[in-house]
């Protein structure tokens, strides 16, 4: 049944006690060290990934090789390697839609990390392949806090359809990028019949770029006063002094992310230890400090009002839904 799972911030998650993994079983650790390294493919920003890498390498002295790319590139690479039988990855971590597609193509093996016990039973993959959604990535309106006066800041997504924003809104291209596409489809469920006229006006007001990251960068630079992007960039760039803030939408829509072990991992022990570390309490706390919204009750990223947000986890559309959505968005956004 396709209904959205509402999580009021991270408080809805029952944290069943810390499973902080001080050390994996000694035979697994020894095997991981013999394997010599672990290769991770993912879409998590490298600076955020670094915090997990430090914990892992500090504990096990096994080097991590991280290949970072947008989710569609990760998907493309993984599927190509799986189909050709030349698999180079041990672990994959990205958003749920891509992970589910890779899972269907047999990219992953079953693995139940001890860390998963700390997540609500309902969040577990029934097939035991994907991890629970260990982090959420909320999407909102971001704006340049130097360019916009407080009274000019949009208060809801519907405000972006007003004529005053014509040519001043920046979006990642929803005809190819799964993130804005999922967000817009999520809004359809919220807005009902009002959705279509809203998106038509939003399309007329918007310029497009390739990624949500580019949206944040151009808003910071002042090329566009507002855009739609990840809230975590407010922290990632804000700690450097960037004039980026976000609109406290209610609710705010978020993408879930999973991690999984390769079905043909060359370094299976090191891969399992990596998943254990990432989804451990220590790993999640470190991710939260780096700006991620993790599923640990009472733990929030250092972003103003993060604890007050009502987070709605977006349903990940199927492959077929994406195909139909692409056609619809192409008509709206690309044939003006």
């Amino acid at each position, binding site marked *: 049944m396709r209904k959205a799972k509402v999580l009021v911030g991270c408080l809805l998650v029952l944290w069943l006690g810390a499973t902080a993994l001080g050390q994996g079983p000694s035979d697994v650790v020894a095997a991981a060290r013999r394997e010599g390294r672990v*290769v991770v493919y993912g879409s998590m*920003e*490298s*600076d955020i990934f670094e915090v997990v890498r430090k914990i892992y390498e500090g504990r096990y002295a096994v080097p991590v*090789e*991280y*290949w*970072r*790319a*947008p*989710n*569609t*590139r990760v*998907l*493309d690479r993984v*599927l*190509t390697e799986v*189909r*050709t*039988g*030349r698999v*180079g990855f041990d672990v994959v971590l990205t958003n749920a*839609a*891509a992970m589910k*597609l890779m899972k269907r193509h047999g990219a992953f093996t079953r693995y139940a990390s001890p860390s998963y016990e700390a997540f609500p039973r309902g969040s577990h993959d029934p097939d035991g392949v994907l991890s629970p959604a260990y982090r959420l990535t909320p999407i909102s309106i971001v704006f340049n806090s130097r360019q916009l006066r407080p009274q000019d800041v949009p208060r809801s997504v519907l405000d972006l359809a007003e004529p005053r924003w014509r040519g001043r809104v*920046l979006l990642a*291209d929803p*005809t*190819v*990028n*799964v993130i804005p*596409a999922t967000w817009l489809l999520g809004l359809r469920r919220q807005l009902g019949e009002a959705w279509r006229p809203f998106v038509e006006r939003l399309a007329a007001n918007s*310029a*497009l*770029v*390739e*990624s949500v*990251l580019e949206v*944040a*960068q151009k808003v*910071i*630079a*002042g*090329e*566009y006063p507002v855009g739609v992007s990840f809230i975590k*960039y407010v922290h*990632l*760039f804000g700690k*450097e*002094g*960037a004039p980026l803030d976000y609109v406290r939408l209610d609710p705010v829509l978020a993408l879930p992310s999973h991690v999984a072990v390769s079905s043909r991992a060359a370094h299976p022990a090191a891969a399992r230890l990596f998943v254990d570390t990432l989804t451990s309490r220590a790993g999640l706390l470190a991710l939260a400090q780096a700006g991620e919204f993790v599923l640990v009750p009472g733990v929030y990223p250092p972003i103003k009002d993060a604890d007050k947000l009502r987070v709605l986890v977006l349903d990940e559309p199927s*492959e077929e839904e*994406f195909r139909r959505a*692409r056609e619809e968005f192409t008509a709206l956004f*690309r*044939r*003006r």
Partner: protein
Amino acid sequence: MQLGGAVSRTLAWPRAWGRADATVWIGGGVGVLLAFLTLYPTAMLFYGSLSDAPVGTLGRFTLAHYRAAYTDPATYRLMANSFVFAAGAAGLSVLLGLALAWITVRTNAPGRALFELVALAPNVLPPLLVATSWTLVLSPRIGILNLTLLRWLGLPPLNVYSLGGMVFVEGLVLTPLAFLIIAAALRAMDPSLEEAARLAGSGHLDAARRITVPLVVPAVLAAGTLNFVRAIESFDVPAVIALPAGIEVFSTKIFREALAAFPPNHNLAATYAVSQLVIAVALVLVYRRITGLSERYATITGRGYRPNVVDLGRWRYVASGAALLILGVLVVVPFLVLVYVSLLPFYEVPSWEVLGRLTGRHYAFLLQSDRAARALRVSLALALGGATLAMLLASLVAYFAVRRRGRLTGALEALSFVPWAFPGTALAIGLLWAYVQLPLPIYGTVWILLISYVTRFLPYGLRPMTATMVQVHRELEESSRVCGAGFLRTFQRVLLPLLKPGFLAGWAILFTIYVREFSTSVFLYTPRAEPVGPLLYHLWQDAQPGRMAALGVVVSLICVVVVGLARRWVGEGKTLR
């Protein structure tokens, strides 16, 4: 100018086969190698466009991808956009390249050596960074130039997010290639023809019109042809400018509809790439028809040559000023913006406040990062080895294509042009399809990168070699053969030294391209052998424009130094002084 025409006919390929000497074996070997390098991935790309299965799996025949691609009316609009974009960019690049090459090679304008060195610099700047730099200069809202125009002159803003903006930036990106090809041809020109014209009473301008211009036409055509195709396949500049401008060109369509889709559709990408192949093949045929009477352009003879320098008198300072202006737009502006971005925590419009936030930490990151050091090592090794291998192969192909005119040799040149036609991403898919199936352990290693670089960029090396080979008369080669030297010895002792300007031009082009190659590498590399191009891209994707700019600056400086050293090593530098 028709000397040796009869001799050339006696050396036509079919008769050479009959003699079964080393030339035949080498020619055959080059042909087989070239066919393998180009036709195999090309065939696999065609296969992909006609298959209903993704890469790595066997599929059934289908025309569904062609139906999807060519029943969409938008496809024809974007084709028109692509032609305007490519023709404009190629035209602008040839104009700027020709002006710069003429001032640098043929005049006594002060500062020529510096111009030549600086003219190479934009070729080493990754186009992604150049395009980004120009958006920061010409963005309607925050462009440095626009803000200046508005503040000081009250003028309306220029808009880089337009077709004109795309043509302008792509034209600048392509100018170094045009410059290198045309400069090599100008340098290899026989001065006695111009002297004869002047002795016969022609002025400088008249001699230039009647002698210099016709002699430089093959190089101009070569530069224009290559840059047209390069612009058609270019993705970097359109990726930065076209999407926000709402303009669709071929490469963005391929990327958007096929490669960035969820899930990616390699088959559809291959289908669109077939159109570009058709365009490029048509261009090769046109080019070969125009340059068919290659004897018209043979200007290097056994009498020795050294291009004349035109004394411009007082106008030489104007020429230097014009060159400086071109180089300012070509190099100084994007490079300064790049340096500026590399010194900021995040991009801001320049102001006194911003000066207080300048930081060198992005450069410190490069010094400390194993990943950056490894990427530089991998890319430099690929650039040095790949450029040398590709130029040796290009020399042989150019020799057979120019000297052994015939249907088979004509096919050789056409074959070598095939990789030009593909967008880097689509060709990478062809290569991926091709080498994944091959029972050789090269997929996932640095060797597949080397093979892909040589394959994809061979035409870049071949054009200057062909343009130079056309101008080397065969009487020198004949003399060597008559004296008893075999093909290899003649090639090594006679032809290669004469071809040095073209070889060097091609080597420099390839080196600078290989060091920052992105669109093919990103599909074929593994994290253990990550070159600079994908690393730059990933730094961009990782919200690290400062680190990306810093790496871009470092790579550019390395390229300038290496190319300068290479030129000095082969003695070419002396001719610039």
